[in-house]
């Protein structure tokens, strides 16, 4: 099958710092070069986008020579660290801004969902806003009218549909916005992380709808998210961006593998964290000898190796697990079920095991803790690890999405006992 969307050598240059009076000089220079028929002098400068190093020029390439193709019905997941260029790419695809060089060709209408509820006006009622938002996203009045009941039902805002949107709760506004977006029928849908809103039930509905769009109706979807489990469950292919350049395009498993191994999302760490009296040497999260892609049906082992420079009477050794946005979820302490006792200088190894079928799918952060209670903590964030758990599709249900916004049920244990017909 031939591609429905094709990006050829697209690059996007941005100017760093404030755009202001200083730019008029550059503008004049650019204009002077154009008059003489020369190339834009500022396109030659510009660095690769690396946030951590100081820039030497004021111009930077947010995206550089991106090439990819998407075939009809494919769901392409675009992943990368913060600042890798994901949002810039989406902006280009949705024609909000144009590339500095290169072309994007498409055979279908692109509808973009960089935000839900674009164009909502507080003074208008829910119903009026459905029309407003639908039209902004490129639907015609008749299209919206035929789907109006469906949209209202999907949003779950029937009762408030004739109330001005400014009286809505933020959750309701989002639901209404997503309901409109979910009923768009473009050939290509570009979605930013809009799923990170709403309660768990609504997220499930939203993901289900997205899957329905791609598998059921054969639409092409480009999806950007930090939620690895939703990328994994929705996407068929992946595009990994790093510093504005494509690192890898391939199957979603392959791309996620590479991404999770990159240091942002690491499952193991070794070095020295602490000082002479107490330090962490190694930390690792693994599952049945693998260090990535944990399934919810497997046990997950957390291992710590630490060194004590002197004798201590009592110390805390433990792990704190939090959601990817930092809500504390679980504390695992050696001391909880073991007495404090004298512990000699030396090197130790401690391991914790999360039993299979206990945590919900999602992304987790792990921070290690070596400390003297109420006195000093020796470990810092530099040894922190993260991991994500995805659903084992061979078993029963699929989506127990851990809600990152409002912490939801994080435990999904297999405590089911029996089901029998009694009547």
């Amino acid at each position: 099958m031939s591609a429905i969307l094709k990006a050829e050598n697209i690059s996007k240059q941005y100017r760093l710092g404030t755009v202001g009076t200083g730019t008029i000089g550059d503008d004049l220079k650019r204009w002077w070069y154009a008059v003489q028929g020369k190339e834009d002098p500022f396109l030659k400068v510009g660095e690769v986008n690396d946030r951590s190093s100081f820039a030497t020029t004021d111009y930077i390439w947010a995206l550089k020579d991106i090439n990819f193709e998407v075939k009809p019905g494919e769901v392409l997941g675009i992943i990368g660290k913060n600042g890798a260029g994901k949002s810039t790419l989406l902006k280009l695809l949705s024609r909000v801004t144009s590339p500095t060089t290169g072309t994007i060709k498409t055979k279908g209408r692109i509808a973009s969902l960089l935000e839900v509820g674009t164009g909502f006006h507080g003074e208008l009622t829910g119903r009026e806003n459905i029309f407003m938002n639908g039209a902004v996203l490129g639907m015609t009045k008749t299209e919206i009218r035929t789907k109006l009941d469906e949209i209202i039902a999907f949003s779950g805002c029937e009762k408030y549909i004739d109330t001005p949107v400014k009286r809505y709760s933020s959750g309701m506004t989002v639901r209404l916005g997503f309901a409109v977006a979910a009923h768009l029928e473009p050939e290509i849908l570009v979605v930013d992380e809009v799923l990170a809103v709403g309660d768990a039930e609504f997220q499930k509905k939203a993901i289900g709808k997205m899957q329905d769009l791609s598998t059921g109706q054969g639409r092409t979807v480009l999806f950007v998210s930090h939620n690895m489990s939703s990328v994994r469950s929705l996407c068929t292919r992946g595009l990994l961006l790093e510093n504005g350049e494509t690192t890898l395009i391939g199957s979603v498993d392959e791309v996620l593998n590479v991404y999770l191994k990159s240091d942002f999302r690491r499952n193991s760490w070794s070095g020295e964290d602490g000082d002479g009296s107490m330090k962490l040497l190694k930390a690792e999260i693994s599952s049945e000898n693998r260090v990535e892609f944990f399934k919810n049906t497997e046990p997950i082992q957390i291992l710590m190796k630490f060194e004590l420079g002197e004798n201590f009477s009592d110390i805390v050794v433990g792990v704190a697990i939090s959601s990817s946005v930092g809500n504390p979820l679980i504390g695992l302490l050696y001391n909880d079920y073991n007495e404090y006792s004298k512990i000699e200088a030396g090197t130790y190894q401690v391991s914790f095991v999360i039993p299979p079928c206990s945590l919900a799918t999602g992304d987790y952060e792990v921070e290690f803790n070596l400390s003297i209670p109420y006195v000093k903590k020796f470990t810092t964030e530099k040894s922190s690890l993260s991991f994500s758990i995805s659903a084992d599709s061979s078993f029963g249900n699929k989506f127990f999405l851990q809600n990152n916004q409002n912490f939801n049920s994080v435990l999904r244990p297999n405590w089911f006992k029996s089901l029998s017909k009694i009547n």
Partner: protein
Amino acid sequence: MNKLENNDWLYEITPKRKLIDLNFKEIWRYRDLLILFVKRDIVTVYKQTILGPLWYFIQPLFTSVIFTLVFNNIANIPTGGVPPFLFNLTGITAWNYFSQCFTGTSNTFRNNAGIFGKVYFPRAIMPLTTVISNLFKFGIQLLILVVFYLYYLWQDYSLSPNLNLLLFPVYVLMMALLGLGAGMIISAFTTKYRDLTVLVGFATSLLLYISAVPYPLSEVGNNIPSLAWVVKFNPLAQIIEGFRFMILDTGIFTWSGFLYTLIVCVILVLIGLIVFNRTEKNFIDTV
């Protein structure tokens, strides 16, 4: 890939800019959006106000009263036999339409940065919305004008429009084009250089005085002949004078002045379109 497939692309997103890239087909496809925006503009302005749409009447009436007191009763500017209040109301009605189109359009990019930054639709929709929704307000204000016109007729003033009234649609179009063109040029520059927003604020209120709104065009020639050209070559003054001429049959009308104004309006809109078009693609990076 075969050749046919390569030509199949629905559209391309490229950095290249054509000089004027106004896609009427696309704007037509988004006509529902245009209608909704216009409706939104009209409906939401006076929501949660007590007087509601009455505000559309109050503003021109009060301005006309003040103008009459200041310019006609205190400064004694002659109005050519027409009741001064009516003279001012006519000028202000026309002026309001222009100035609202102008200020509305000149804020297009800044006011809509939020929505423009999230979703694509033909950007020209926004200035068009401004022009059309202000046309609605203009219609309402025209209604007051008619009411007062009839009142003065009933009071036995000798008033009559002349044949030029046939040019009425052209005058409205010229006002819209002028507001649109100048507004689009300003809007494009304000995305980068905010200075212009400050300028536009007070420049429009000053522009009123060199546009022959509170006085007839002939008065400038009589009193300050050395500076009369400023007003005479101001297309807006020509429009306002012409507008008053066809309704009140007072003032000067020349075909050369009319043509001159029409040409200026068209040129301004063309420049506006070019500048607007250059800006709309990348403004989100600089706004």
